[in-house]
C-alpha cells in the first residue's frame, strides 16, 4: 500500500538483455522518476520467457506481468521475440479463462534507445492496474 492508502500493484517485468533491459537503463540515465511498482527480471531474450514463469508470478501475487522485447526483426537471437509473441498470444487466452484480463499481462517492444517509451509503458500499466485493484487470492 502506498502512503496515501491507495492500491499499489506489483508488476513483474521480463526484459531481454539486449534491447529492453538497455532501454530501462536508458530511462535510468534520464533520471526521470516513474512508479516503483515494477520489478525487473533480466533474461537473455524474450524467447526465454516460459509461460510457466508468468503463471507462477500471478499465482504468487503479482498484479501484472510485462514482457518487453526487441522490436520485430531486431531480436539478437533472430526470432526469439516472435516466439515470445506467439506464446504471449496463447497465454493471454488461457489467462482470460482464469479471469485475468489482458491488461494484466502485456507484451511490448522497447529498444535500447527507447528510455522514454519504457517509462511510458510502466507508468501506463501502473495507472491501469491501480484502478483494477488486487487480484483475488
Amino acid at each position, binding site marked *: 500500500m502506498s502512503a496515501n492508502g491507495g492500491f499499489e500493484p506489483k508488476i513483474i517485468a521480463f526484459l531481454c538483455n539486449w534491447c529492453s533491459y538497455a532501454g530501462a537503463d536508458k530511462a535510468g540515465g534520464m533520471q526521470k522518476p516513474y512508479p*516503483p511498482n515494477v*520489478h525487473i527480471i533480466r533474461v537473455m531474450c524474450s524467447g526465454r520467457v516460459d509461460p510457466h*514463469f508468468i503463471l507462477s508470478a500471478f499465482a*504468487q501475487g503479482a498484479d501484472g506481468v510485462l514482457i518487453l522485447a526487441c522490436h520485430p526483426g531486431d531480436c539478437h537471437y533472430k526470432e526469439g521475440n516472435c*516466439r515470445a509473441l506467439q506464446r504471449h498470444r496463447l497465454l493471454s487466452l488461457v489467462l482470460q479463462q482464469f479471469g485475468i484480463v489482458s491488461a494484466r499481462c502485456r507484451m511490448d517492444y522497447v529498444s535500447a534507445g527507447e528510455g522514454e517509451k519504457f517509462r511510458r509503458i510502466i507508468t501506463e500499466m501502473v495507472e491501469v492496474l491501480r484502478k483494477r485493484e488486487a487480484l483475488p487470492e
Partner: protein
Amino acid sequence: MAGGGVKIGIYFCNCGSNIADKISADAVREASRTFPDQPYVATVDFICSESGQEQFVESLTFERPDRVVVAACSPRDHEGTMQHCLARGGINPYLMQMVNIREQIAWVTEDRDRATEKAITAIRGAVYRVRLQEPLRKKQVAVCTDVLVIGAGPAGMKAAVSLAEAGRSVVLVERSPFIGGLPVRFDELFPALECAPCLLEPLMGELLHGDHSEAIELLTLAELWQVTGFYGNFIAKIKKKPRHVSLHGCIGCGECTLACPATTRNRLHNNGSEQKAVDFAFAGMLPNAPFLREEVCLRFQGSDCRACKDACPMGEDVIDLDEGESLLERNIGAIIIATGAGLFDASRLAGMGRGMLPDVYDALQFEHMLSSTGPTGGGIVTSSGEVPAAVAIIHCVGSLDGDHCAYCSGICCQYAFKFNHAISAKYPETVITHYHRELVAPGKEAYALMEAARTRRNSSFIRCDSGNYPVITPEGTGRLQVRGEDVVTIADMVILCPAIVPAEGADRLAALLDINRDCAGFYDELQGRMDASQSTLKGIYLAGACREPMDIQKALLEGMAAVGHALAGLQPGRMIEVEPATAEVATSRCAGCHLCSSVCPYHAISFDSEQHVSSVNGVLCRGCGTCVAACPAGAITGHHFTNEQILAEIEGLLK
C-alpha cells in the same frame, strides 16, 4: 543446488551519493535478516573503482562466501568486472548475481522510502536466485585451423592468399575451370578504368605460384558436396569433376587444342566463335591449362580419338582421358563463402527483346564484346558487323521492382557510365541514350564517370519513373526502336543493365550448409550491420557479392574481413572456449518431439535418431533460451538461466 547453511554475501555499492542518496544501506542490512540464509551485507563506496575492486576481492578472500549478490549499477556496465573480481577471489564467477539498484531504482524513484523498499525487494529476488546458481566452467574444444574457401573470384582469392600468408592451410574450391571470377574477363573496371586482368594479375600470381601458395590447395571444377560437424571441426566432402589435363604437368602451350578435331560454339562469345573440346575458356585464363569438355570430346561419343594426348609435348601423363569424378574429404575449422553473384535474366521481362533480338545485349555480353580477348577482339559492332550509330543503355532492368528485384544493385549505373565512356572513346559520334529509373553514383570516385557521361555531346538521359520498362521492337530497316515513357529513339544496339542476383546454385549451397538466405536469395548475415561477414551459422563467413551486390573493391575488402574472423577465432594451439551459459538436454527426459530444434535459430540442436533424443551443441548454442522455454517436457536446462533460478527470483520478488 545449494542446501541449508549457504553463506551469502551482499555487496552494496553506494556509488558515491548516486545510490546512497536514495537507498538506505542500513535498511537493506536490516531487511536482509529476514532473507534465507541470513546473508552478510558489506558496503563499498565505488565497487567498480580500482580501490573498490581491491576491497571487494579482499573481502571475498576473507569471508569466502558460497554465493555473492552485488547491488550496484547495471550488469551491462560492470557484470564482467564483478565476475573477474570473483575469479580473483577464488570464487566461480557464475555464483554471483548483480542487482541494478542504480539505473533501475535509485535514479528513477522519487521517494527515498519507496526506492529503499524496491531495492530490498530486488535484492531479495537476487538472494533467492543466487542460492540456486551453479558454478559453471568454460569448456575447451580442440580445433582444426584450416579454412575452406568456396569460390575463386576476387573475394575468395584474396581470402585464400591472405590466410596462406598467415600460415593457414586453405582448400580453395572453384566450380569453373579458372580463377578470377567474373571480372577477370572484363576489360576495364569502373570507376578508374583500370584493366581488370592486370589488376587481378598479382593476386592470381600470389595464389598460383607465390611465396605461400604451397599452403593453398586449389580445386577447380569442384563443388562442395557435403558438410558435417561444426565450427572448428567441419568435415567437407568435395566433388571434383575431371579436368583431364593435369594442372601440374601442363605448360599451357595449347598443342592439344590445335590438334583437337571436335568443336563447339563459344557461349561466352555469344556463340560468335568456336571452341575445341580441349580448350581454354578464354585467352589468358589461369591456371594456364586447358580443360576437356566430355560432352564435346569425340572419345566420349564412342570414338577412340586421342589426338590431344598424342600432341602433348609433355608426355603421356599430362592428359588423362580416363580421369573420373572424385570425392575428396577435408577437415577444416571454418568456411568462407565467396561464390559471387549473377545477373537477373532480362528475358523474363517481355518487351525488352533479350534473347529474341540479336542486338539486345546484357551487360556481361557487352563486357565480353569490349574485351580484347572477346568475340570481336574488343570491337563494338552490331550483329551485322556495323559500328552502331546509336546505342541505348537501359539501367535498372529488374531493379527497384517489387515484382522482380526489390533493391538497387548499386553498381549498374557505374558500369553503364563506363560503357558510355568505352563507346565514346572509340566512336565519339555514336549517339548514346541512357534510360534509367534512378541514377546512383555513391562514394568518392563514381561521380567523375557519371559527369563525363552526362556532359558528353551525344549522350542523353531519359528518366523512366512510371514503373514501366522501355519496350524494344525491331524497326523496318533492321534497326531497333526503343520506347521509354513517351520518348521513342532509334538504336542499332541496346545494352541492358540487369539487377545483380544470387549466383546460380546459391540455394543448393545454402541448403547444404544450413545457412539462411534473405528474401532476395543472397546469404543472410548474422546481423546486417554489426556482423555482416558472418552467416547465420558459426564458423561460416560471407565475403563479396554472395551476400549483397557489390563492386570488386568491396569484395576484396570483404575477403579480408572474413579472413579476420577465421584468424581471430581459430588459432593454432589454442582451443576454442565454449560459453557455459548455454542449453543442455537431459536425454532421460527428452521425448524426441523436435520442438527445440525447430525454434533454434542457430541450428545448434541435432537429433539422434537411434536414441530418439535431441542434443545441443555447446559450440553453436548462443544461450538465448528459446528452446528451454519451448520444451514441453522441461528436459532442457538453460544454464545460468534455469527454470528453478528464474522461478526462485520471482518468488523472492513477490515474498
